[in-house]
């Protein structure tokens, strides 16, 4: 397959989607607002949207064991790429979706990617979604990622979403919205590391609409240097449902973290909980790892790596 991918492109794709060369199965690789390569499978059909930039991904009912890759890379400075990716997942599917965006910006102008992902998940599905965001480059140009994720879950489905922002993203505003049907469960894990003068804001609104629906929101973040993070997760229980929100942050240097987990019960049968913690790395943790032969710096890195793992 003759696709023109530079070493920078390949390295970004490996970082965000762990793919080397062209992946197997259905995929759509987008670079600088343009389609690089697309592949459909017998069960997954990807088509270009006619109204907005972006793609529709249709997964046939009963699709099992397939992976769908839709990574985006931005290597052009000064580009603002807005893309709408909409998934229509039929009943009884069991699939993995790997998305993510990598920006390489060596210049002074900002590069921005705003991905609007929507997931219409049918009944009795098992979905795993992994999204990694990453920025790199020597330039002073900002690397901006503003993803919006909308999830609509049918009945008795399970969806695990792992959203990770590794490093190098100057500014991000993440909006995640979900409506969860009867008997369905969503596990939303967000992991974030900011450094230097970066800012990150994450707004999450989960509506538990069906009986016996549930959600677990887990946010783990590390704020270093002068970076600022704000978390606003909100879980609304509209039926006999269960919701748990957990925000944990490690703060370092002169960073600031604001965490406002919210729960709202619109039904007397909703059981909702939230917890939030912000703190430095404990001295006793460093000491313990030093007694196992790590240096202070290695111990700190180990603690951060595990916390964000």
């Amino acid at each position: 397959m003759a696709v023109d991918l530079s070493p920078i492109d390949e390295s970004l794709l490996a970082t965000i989607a762990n793919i080397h060369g062209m992946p197997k199965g259905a995929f759509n690789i987008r670079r600088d607002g343009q389609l690089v390569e697309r592949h459909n499978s017998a069960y997954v059909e990807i088509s270009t949207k006619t109204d907005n930039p972006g793609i529709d991904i249709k997964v046939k009912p009963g699709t099992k064991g397939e992976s769908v890759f839709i990574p985006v890379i931005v290597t052009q400075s000064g580009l603002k790429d807005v893309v709408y990716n909409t998934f229509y997942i039929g009943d009884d599917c069991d699939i993995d979706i790997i998305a993510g965006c990598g920006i390489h910006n060596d210049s002074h102008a900002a590069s921005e990617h705003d991905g609007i992902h929507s997931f219409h998940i049918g009944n009795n599905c098992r979905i795993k979604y992994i999204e990694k965001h990453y920025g790199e480059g020597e330039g002073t140009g900002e690397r901006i990622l503003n993803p919006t994720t909308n999830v609509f879950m049918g009945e008795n489905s399970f969806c695990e979403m792992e959203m990770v922002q590794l490093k190098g993203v100057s500014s991000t505003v993440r909006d995640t919205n979900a409506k969860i049907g009867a008997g369905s469960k969503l596990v939303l894990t967000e992991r974030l590391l900011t450094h230097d003068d970066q800012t990150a804001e994450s707004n999450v609104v989960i509506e538990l609409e069906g009986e016996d629906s549930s959600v677990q929101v887990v946010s783990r973040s590390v704020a270093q240097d002068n970076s600022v993070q704000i978390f606003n997760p909100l879980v609304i229980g509209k039926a006999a449902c269960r919701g748990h929100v957990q925000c944990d942050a490690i703060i370092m240097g002169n960073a600031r973290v604001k965490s406002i987990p919210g729960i709202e019960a619109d039904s007397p049968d909703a059981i909702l909980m939230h917890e939030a913690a912000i703190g430095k790395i404990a001295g006793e943790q460093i000491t313990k790892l030093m007694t196992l032969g790590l240096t202070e710096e290695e111990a700190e890195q180990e603690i951060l790596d595990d916390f964000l793992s």
Partner: protein
Amino acid sequence: MLELKNLVFEVPVKEGSKETKRIIDDLTLAIPDDTFTVITGPNGGGKSTLAKLIMGIESPTSGQILLDGEDITEYSITERAKAGIGYGFQQPARFKGMKVKKLLEIAAGEKLPMLSCNQYLSKVGLCSADWLTREVDKNLSGGEVKRIEIATMLARDPKLAIYDEPEAGIDLWSFDRLTETFRSIHDAGNGRSIIIISHQERIIRLADNIVLLENGKISTTGTPEEIMPKLGLVRKMATGCTLTEPTRLHITEIPTTC
């Protein structure tokens, strides 16, 4: 061999105060290779401080610490760990996101096969293979995290292992296993030395040498046969306090108008 020479550790009486209090008072002690030493004594006698001084968690005010003839007084914790000293904490730290297997691997300094990890864990009474993927976080009970701490020491296998009250927080069933583990490390006779800080009679009985530490000084040393009678452990059960009558509460006597 570990040698402590004229070790002194002083702390300010109050924060910012120039007046100091001596926690370890001109202490000299030698721990030969291949020995099992128990340091015991009353609370506040300086036992844990002494263990921390050996590991480098605290720095002495004066005096010298030598390991195999090398002066390690100025060594950092990391350097002492690399020189062969290990430390089992009384209240081990917890780590969010760190799996038990990872901690064992950091301790061992290498990737470990599942089987080895399970062997270390089963020696401390954690027999389910599920333990390897559990996180060493606040979801573990105090006893569980303590047992994992001891398993990390087994994985590290230091030349000189210091355990600060390993029995604290451990249930009786696991305690039996723990004493067996200490006995087998000792019986292996491969040059490893163990220092245990303990009040437990059964651990004290395992020792080659007992050091009784009071007010920062060694008040006596010797074998269990020599020292045990002086510790007064046998009298512990005979004495004790008598229960008083529980206070009777009369609801009618409690004013309800306030």
